[in-house]
């Protein structure tokens, strides 16, 4: 339904999007995940025909957005980051205007406006001026606007930004209910949102795609049993270094102080009481026995040893920081 091929976009000397390619199948919800400034909005603007790419091409619903913009736009609904409302129009007038410029036939216009207002639950605000609506309602009018011509493809730029928790849940339910009839691309930097709504995720950072997969696979692929959480009752000093010396271990992180990598020669925090570590190993190497052995031979107490499943957030952080190691956060 959507095919993005090697899209690159330069703003002057800045490269906002760098050789991005992905596909979205009919009826799928694709999440576009990345930190602010990663190129999400730029990619979406290219998909919607708001701006042409510097290189590459995008095909939406079978039409190249650059060579056949009108045909592609007719089949695309777009909710930009800020809902594009005219403050002096009422919600109904606004949707009526959008229906006109989105080529909804005059005979169906009223019915369509009513239908999308029903669907996005804004009927009670139909005669309120858009400028006087609350943030939540604005967002919903924006969504109604994107749906008005019943497009094949929906492109939603941070559809839940600025909503309260109840509205967020409602909006996510609405988006999920739209899948199937519509192919949806939504961007977000809220990670649980992707896990809850999307069937596939594209993680983008600094304009590059760093991973494309289902949320489950991403979580499993990147972590799974490869990281172990271990809590030991040790005198301190060399515990971290001792664990790091085990064959197959790639990194030992103190779990008391999140994300402070301890090299073999680093001085670990001196504390009485149990110490917690996250131990990362090479893939396909089971280090649990070796870890247990070293703890026991040193005479420490092994309090806890379990595999860590990363949350999508950790996956995201890891993927994006691994891509640019020189900027890895140091706590």
């Amino acid at each position: 339904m959507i095919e993005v091929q090697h899209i690159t976009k330069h703003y002057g000397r800045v490269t906002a999007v760098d050789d991005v390619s992905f596909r979205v199948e009919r009826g799928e919800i694709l999440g576009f995940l990345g930190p602010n400034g990663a190129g999400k909005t730029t990619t979406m603007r290219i998909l919607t025909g708001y701006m042409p790419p510097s290189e590459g091409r995008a095909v939406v619903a079978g039409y190249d957005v650059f060579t056949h913009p009108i045909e592609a736009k007719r089949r695309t609904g777009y909710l930009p980051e800020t809902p594009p409302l005219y403050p002096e129009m009422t919600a109904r007038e606004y949707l009526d205007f959008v229906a006109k410029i989105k080529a909804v036939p005059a005979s169906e216009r009223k019915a369509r406006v009513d239908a999308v207002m029903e669907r996005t639950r804004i009927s009670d605000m139909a005669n309120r001026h858009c400028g006087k609506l609350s943030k939540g309602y604005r967002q919903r009018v924006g969504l109604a606007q994107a749906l008005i011509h019943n497009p094949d493809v929906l492109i939603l730029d941070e559809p839940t930004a600025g909503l309260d928790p109840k509205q967020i849940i409602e909006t996510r339910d609405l988006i999920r209910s739209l899948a199937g009839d519509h192919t949806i691309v939504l961007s977000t930097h809220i990670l649980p949102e992707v896990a809850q709504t999307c069937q596939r995720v594209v993680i983008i950072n600094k304009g590059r795609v760093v991973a494309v997969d289902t949320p489950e696979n991403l979580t499993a692929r990147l972590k799974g049993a490869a990281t172990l959480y271990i809590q030991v009752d040790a005198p301190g000093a060399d515990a971290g270094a001792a664990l790091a010396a085990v064959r197959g271990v790639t990194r030992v992180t103190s779990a008391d102080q999140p994300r402070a990598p301890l090299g073999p020669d680093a001085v670990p925090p001196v504390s009485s009481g149990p110490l917690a570590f996250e131990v990362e190993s090479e893939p396909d190497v089971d280090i649990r026995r070796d870890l247990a052995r070293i703890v026991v031979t040193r005479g420490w107490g092994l309090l806890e040893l379990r595999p860590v499943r990363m949350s999508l957030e950790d996956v995201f952080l890891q993927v994006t920081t691994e891509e640019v190691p020189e900027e890895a956060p140091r706590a």
Partner: protein
Amino acid sequence: MRNVLAIAEKELRSYFASPIAYILIGLFSLLFGWFFYVYLMAFVQQSEQMMQMGGGGGANVNQMMVRGLFQNTAVIILFVMPMITMRTYSEEKRSGTIELLLTSPVTDLEIIIGKFIGALGLYAAMLLVTMLYILILFKIGNPEWRPIGAGYLGLLLMGGCFLSTGLFISSLTKNQIVAGFLTFATFLMLWIINWLGESSSPTTREVLNYLSITEHFDDFARGIIDTKHVVYYLSFILFGLFLTAKSVDSERWRG
């Protein structure tokens, strides 16, 4: 065409939903009324003098009053027009609604022409209100309507030039104030460009006179429709719209 009308209607609606339209129409007709009164009084005095000197009914309303009135109206337009066009593109860019227009299945040209027609509609409404004064003239006197019609046509064409220029300038910036002031400065330049000609060679003077937007209005004020001037104004309008199209397109590429 349907898209053009939808956008024109939206533009007009937004003018009339905000105070802009009412303030513009009100102030414009007030100023027009002021000039109308001043010229009417001057005309009454003159024709009385002519009567006393035995000239007898030779006073021509069209020549002596309406012409001056139109020329002054052209000056008011210079001040008023930037206020119509300054927000057309800037406001859409600032509020992000431009994203809606540019991602809808409408062409840039349809948007531009729609916006132009919308602005022209408001301007036409302003001119329509001033016709009430002219009606008074028909009530108490006996002016010829054809020269007056020509004058209004001239005002409409000249206003169209200002609107297309203003539209172009508004498409360059997000800031309404910048757009408004630049538009005003540009109009003023177009207005006085021929003053330079007075001290220069005949050829330069000819060229500058031709470029001056007011120079072409004189004949209309006099009640003459000369195709030369009509062509000038129409090509001016088209050029302004063309520049707007280029500006919108280049904005798209620059992002």
